[in-house]
């Protein structure tokens, strides 16, 4: 615990150092023109790919594309695209088919709701500001709705998840497994075993490989007839099973590919963080007779917790953009079982349904933003500075 407090102190010091430095900048004779010349090119480039397209996209999502001779027109139709996605004909594709719950579904739903209620009560008792309480309430309601949807499509008799639910499953399962694997491998590699360098380089490799290539490799591996693992599948009685033709088999294949590719990202950063921690605290803990697990749990983990929080956030944001793997590995199929939101939007674009495509993309943006903001507010701020 002391290690954590130490890092925090150091960080606070560094922050005031930054403030002091930027304060001195004016004294260095950088005129307003020079300062503008340094930052505006970057700002303009970002405006070009973010704000401007977002505004246009918003308009497109509220309109319908009509082809006419020699071109096309956008007709404003209000929220029709979104209505179709959330309550209309596209609902089963986008959100999924909801069915009565199984007992396990009830259990999960009740547990989630209880957890949310507990969080709210705690916040209320803890004396949060009115705005904070309102935001928390809104967040909890959203989370409850999301939990309701996930449970009614995944843990129900005959329910079927839509692209939104599938994407969330990809992200949560993928990032969790990547983090645990990455941390575990990084920890083992800091134990001073011979041959570290070899493993470090090998473990980094999947991250550098193009996702399209990864998708093809896993298509070969999941081929139960001609793939290299054919004897294995035959031995466990799955010789005739087709991974990519079974909805859950296909989703698992996509997730395995994603985990294979992105565990290195977690691994490489966590390894560098573990190697960078103070050796003194570890040695002190050892002198005090702590065992390996205690040292990891009480000294190393708290010291790298801010880094952990950040890598998970980065992966969380990036994982929502998944498209290459499901598109190549399974073509989004069987049916629409493995489609992610990005792929959904792309396929709509390809059929020239631009309004619907933009509506899906906007929904994705909304989900990512809410997830990232709640993560930052609930977790990261608690473990990182401030």
């Amino acid at each position, binding site marked *: 615990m002391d290690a954590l407090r130490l890092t925090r102190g150091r960080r606070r010091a560094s922050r005031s150092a930054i403030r002091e430095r930027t304060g001195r900048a004016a004294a*260095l004779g950088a005129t307003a023109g020079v300062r503008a010349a340094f930052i505006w090119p970057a700002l303009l480039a970002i405006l070009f790919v973010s704000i401007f397209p977002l505004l246009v996209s918003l308009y497109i999502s509220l309109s319908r594309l009509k082809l006419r001779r020699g071109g096309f027109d956008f007709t404003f139709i209000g929220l029709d695209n979104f209505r179709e996605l959330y309550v209309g004909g596209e609902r089963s594709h986008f959100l999924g088919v909801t069915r009565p719950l199984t007992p396990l579904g009830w259990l999960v739903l009740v547990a989630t709701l209880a957890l949310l209620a507990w969080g709210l009560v705690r916040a209320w008792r803890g004396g949060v500001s009115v705005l904070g309480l309102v935001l928390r309430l809104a967040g909890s309601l959203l989370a409850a709705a999301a939990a309701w949807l996930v449970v009614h499509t995944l843990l129900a008799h005959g329910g079927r998840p839509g692209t939104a639910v599938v994407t969330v499953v990809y992200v949560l399962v993928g990032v969790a497994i990547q983090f645990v694997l990455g941390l575990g491998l990084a920890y083992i590699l800091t134990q001073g075993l011979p041959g570290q360098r070899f493993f470090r380089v090998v473990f980094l490799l999947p991250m550098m490989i*193009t996702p399209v290539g990864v998708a093809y490799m896993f298509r070969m591996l999941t081929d139960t007839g001609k793939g290299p693992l054919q004897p294995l599948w035959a031995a466990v009685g799955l010789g005739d099973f087709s991974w990519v033709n079974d909805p859950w088999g296909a989703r698992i294949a996509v997730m395995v590919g994603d985990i294979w590719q992105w565990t290195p990202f977690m691994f490489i950063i966590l390894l560098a963080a573990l190697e960078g921690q103070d050796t003194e605290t570890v040695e002190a803990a050892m002198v005090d007779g702590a065992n390996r697990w205690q040292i990891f749990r009480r000294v190393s983990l708290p010291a790298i917790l801010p880094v952990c929080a950040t890598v998970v956030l980065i992966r969380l944001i990036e994982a929502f953009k998944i498209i290459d793997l499901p598109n190549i590995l399974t073509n989004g199929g069987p049916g629409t079982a493995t489609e992610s939101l990005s792929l959904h939007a792309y396929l709509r674009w390809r059929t020239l349904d631009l309004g619907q495509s933009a509506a899906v993309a906007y929904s994705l943006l909304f989900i990512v933003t809410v997830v990232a903001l709640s993560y930052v507010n609930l977790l990261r701020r608690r473990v990182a500075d401030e």
Partner: protein
Amino acid sequence: MSATRMRLMPRRRRSVKDLPPLGKLVAYLILGFWALVVLFPLYWLAITSFKLPIQVNAGPVYLPFVDFHPSLDAWHYIFVDLRSDTLRPYLNTIVVAVGSSTLALLLGATAAYALIRFKYQPRVGVILLFVGCVLLAAAAVWFGAPLPLALVVAAGIFALLASTVGRRFKRGLSNRDVAFWIISQRILPPVAVVIPIYVLFQRVGLLDTRTALVITYAATNLPIVVWLMRDYFNTLPWELEEAAVVDGASTFRVFRSITLPLSIPGLVATFLIVFVFAWNEYLLALFLSSADAQTMPLTVAAQNATRGPQWWYMSVLIQIMILPVIALAIALERVISRGLLVGAVKG
């Protein structure tokens, strides 16, 4: 400062007592298992490219020269028969990846430097004013005003209002807010912004050109560059620059002749990271290029759509695509991991 400390601290072998023999065995088993998981697909890729179609379709064979006789047919087909169809996308990928990474590094590094060294206080009111004028121009264009006229008028109104009313706004943002805004752009899913970019490039006739891809990739990778380089510049000593300024060097000169040479390790790491992103990018290329500017990920992906899975050809294509980046990874593994860590520590 923790980032600096981490970099400056000598990497010392932990004086922890070594793992017990059983622990060592378990550790090596786990490491070996994961190494197998990582390497086996790559091995399979490599040997598949030396197989004939009949050898692939007959079921799995594992060892060249033992199980099957390797042949160069697939390589021959890709490099000789398809020659230009392979080399053109390959060249495109190189040009786009190098060009966009360089551009992103140039713009991003200057912005990151500015955010560390200068003090910005954009006023909230002025930003709102700017957004209002942009909307005004957009509305004017929508109702039929010519674009140049709308832009000029909007810029004029903005300049007028900013110089008169602008000074009265009190509420300002800090450098941290600007940096946070830039970095938060990474949250945007590309699919949410790509359609307008597509329409825009179509209007100006840049669709399916390398230029379009270079511009788009550079802009989407900018946040990463700003995020990593900001923390890197922050670890550089300030005194050198101060001395140069006292000697009469201009800000640009200080940046070019002192700051940039000092930060070459950080620049290399950042370049590599954005380079790999640009090299492997799929979604934007899918929208913005079709034939002339097609990049390798699209070429590889297209193998599926046109001829069904022809594993032997695909293996060759994927291999020539991943070999350069794998070589980079092996040579510069340390640099990459350091570069990423600096960013993750500060967030």
